[in-house]
C-alpha cells in the first residue's frame, strides 16, 4: 500500500498502529492519528459528504477549482471505510457521493476526444456543489457571529411600578396545557430515542414535596416523611419517591448504625 499523502508520508505509516476488527490499520491519514474516542467525535462532526470533501480539500490547501480527483476520492473512501468500521451510522448521502466520485474519476481516466469542445469537465458539477455548500457554510458561521438576543443583546427589563399599571398576564386554560402535553409526548414518541414513560404523578409530586422539605445543611428525619394517616398507599408513595430521589442522586440517606434513625439530606 502506498502512503496516502504525497508529502505527509513517513516511515510510521507502514506500522500497523491499530487493529480494527482483527485487521491491522496502516493507512490512516496522519492527521487521524488520535485516540479512537476523539476520532468518533471528529467523524461525527461532519455535516455530510460535501462537508467531509471540503475538509479533505482544505486540509491540503488545494483550490476547490482544481481538485485532484483521484487523490481526494481515495481519501474520501478511506474515511467512509473508517466510519463503517467504527459502525457509525452512515447516511446514504455519503455512499451516493462515493459513487459520484468514482464516476468522475473513471470519466477523467478516459481520453478526451480533442474535437469535443462542448464536453464539460467531469468535475464541474462537483466543484459547483462544493462551492455552493462552502458559501452557505460560511454564511452560517457569519450569521452565528452576529450579535443576537439572549447572547450579546439583552433587552431591558425596566420596572413598571405595579401599583400604577396593571399589566394583564396571558390567561391559559387547562385544555391548552393538556393539548401541549399531548403534542409534545406524541412528538417525542416519533423520535424513538426519547421515551416518556407513564409514571404515577403522585410519586413525582411526592418527590417534589420531599425536595422542598429537605436542605443540604441539615438532616431531616426519614420517619417524618411518612404519615400513617395517609394509609398504606400514601406511605408507599413516599417510600418510592425517596427511592427515586436517591436513584437520581438528589438526596442522601444517612444512618449511624444498624437500627439507628435514618436521616435525609439534600445532596450537595
Amino acid at each position: 500500500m502506498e502512503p496516502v499523502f504525497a508529502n505527509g508520508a513517513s516511515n510510521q505509516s507502514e506500522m500497523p498502529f491499530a487493529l480494527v476488527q482483527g485487521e491491522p490499520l496502516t493507512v490512516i491519514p496522519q492527521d487521524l492519528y488520535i485516540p479512537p474516542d476523539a476520532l468518533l467525535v471528529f467523524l461525527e462532526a461532519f455535516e455530510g459528504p460535501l462537508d467531509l470533501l471540503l475538509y479533505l480539500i482544505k486540509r491540503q490547501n488545494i483550490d476547490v477549482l482544481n481538485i485532484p480527483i483521484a487523490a481526494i476520492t481515495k481519501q474520501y473512501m478511506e474515511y467512509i471505510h473508517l466510519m463503517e468500521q467504527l459502525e457509525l451510522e452512515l447516511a446514504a448521502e455519503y455512499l451516493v457521493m462515493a459513487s459520484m466520485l468514482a464516476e468522475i474519476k473513471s470519466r477523467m481516466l478516459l481520453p478526451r476526444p480533442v474535437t469535443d469542445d462542448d464536453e464539460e469537465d467531469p468535475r464541474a458539477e462537483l466543484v459547483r456543489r462544493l462551492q455552493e455548500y462552502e458559501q452557505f457554510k460560511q454564511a452560517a458561521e457569519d450569521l452565528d457571529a452576529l450579535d443576537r438576543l439572549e447572547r450579546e443583546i439583552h433587552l431591558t427589563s425596566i420596572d413598571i411600578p405595579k401599583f400604577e399599571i396593571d399589566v394583564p398576564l396571558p390567561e391559559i386554560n387547562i385544555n391548552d396545557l393538556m393539548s401541549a402535553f399531548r403534542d409534545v409526548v406524541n412528538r417525542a414518541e416519533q423520535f424513538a430515542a426519547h421515551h416518556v414513560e407513564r409514571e404515577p404523578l403522585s410519586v413525582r409530586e411526592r418527590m417534589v414535596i420531599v425536595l422542598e422539605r429537605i436542605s443540604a445543611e441539615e438532616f431531616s428525619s426519614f420517619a417524618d416523611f411518612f404519615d400513617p394517616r395517609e394509609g398504606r398507599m400514601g406511605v408507599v408513595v413516599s417510600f418510592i419517591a425517596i427511592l427515586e430521589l436517591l436513584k437520581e442522586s438528589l438526596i442522601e440517606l444517612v444512618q449511624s448504625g444498624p437500627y439507628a434513625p435514618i436521616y435525609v439530606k439534600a445532596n450537595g
Partner: protein
Amino acid sequence: MDADKLRSILEALFAAADKPLSVNQLFELFVGDIEQPGKDEIRKAIHELQARYESGGMELKQVASGFRLQVRPEFETWVARLWEQKPPRYSRALMETLALIAYRQPITRGEIEDIRGVSVSSNIIKTLQEREWVKPLGHKEVPGRPTLYGTTREFLDYFNLKSLNQLPTLAEIRDLDQFNPEFEFDDSGEAAAQ
C-alpha cells in the same frame, strides 16, 4: 476604572436586571476584574446616574433591596395603552415547557430540551418563574449541576386543582381526543358524560 465606563456598565446592569440591585451586589459583580471599582466609586456612579435620570421617561429609584430603573409613574396613561392594545398570549413553546414541568417534575431544562427536541429559551423559564407557576427545587447531581424545576401551589390554584394527581393522565388525554377533539376540559359535566 474610568468613571464614564463604570457609569455605563451600571446603567446596563440596572437596565437588564429584573430586580433591584444593591451596592454590595454590584460590587460582587466586578470581583475578579482587573479594574475592580470600590463601593464608594459605585455609590458615586449611582448618584451621577440618578441625577441624569432626574428628567425623562425613567428614574433610578432606591427601594429596600437596592436601586432599580423604573418607568416614571406620571407616564402611566400611555404605558397602560401599550397593553390595552394587544392582549398577550403565551407561545406554544412555553405551554409545552409548562406541561412537561407539570408532568415530569422534578425536571431540568436539558431534560425538557431532550423531550421537546429543541432548545428552551431562558425567557420561557423566566416567564414561568415570574408567573410563580414554576420554581427551582434544587440541583441535579450531574456535571453542571443543572437546576431542577417543579410546579408551585400557585400553579395548582390557577387551574383549580387540589393536587397534581388531578391532572389527567396521558392515556386519558388521548382517549378523550378520540371521542371529541374539541373537548372542553373545564366543563366537568360534559367531561363525565363522555
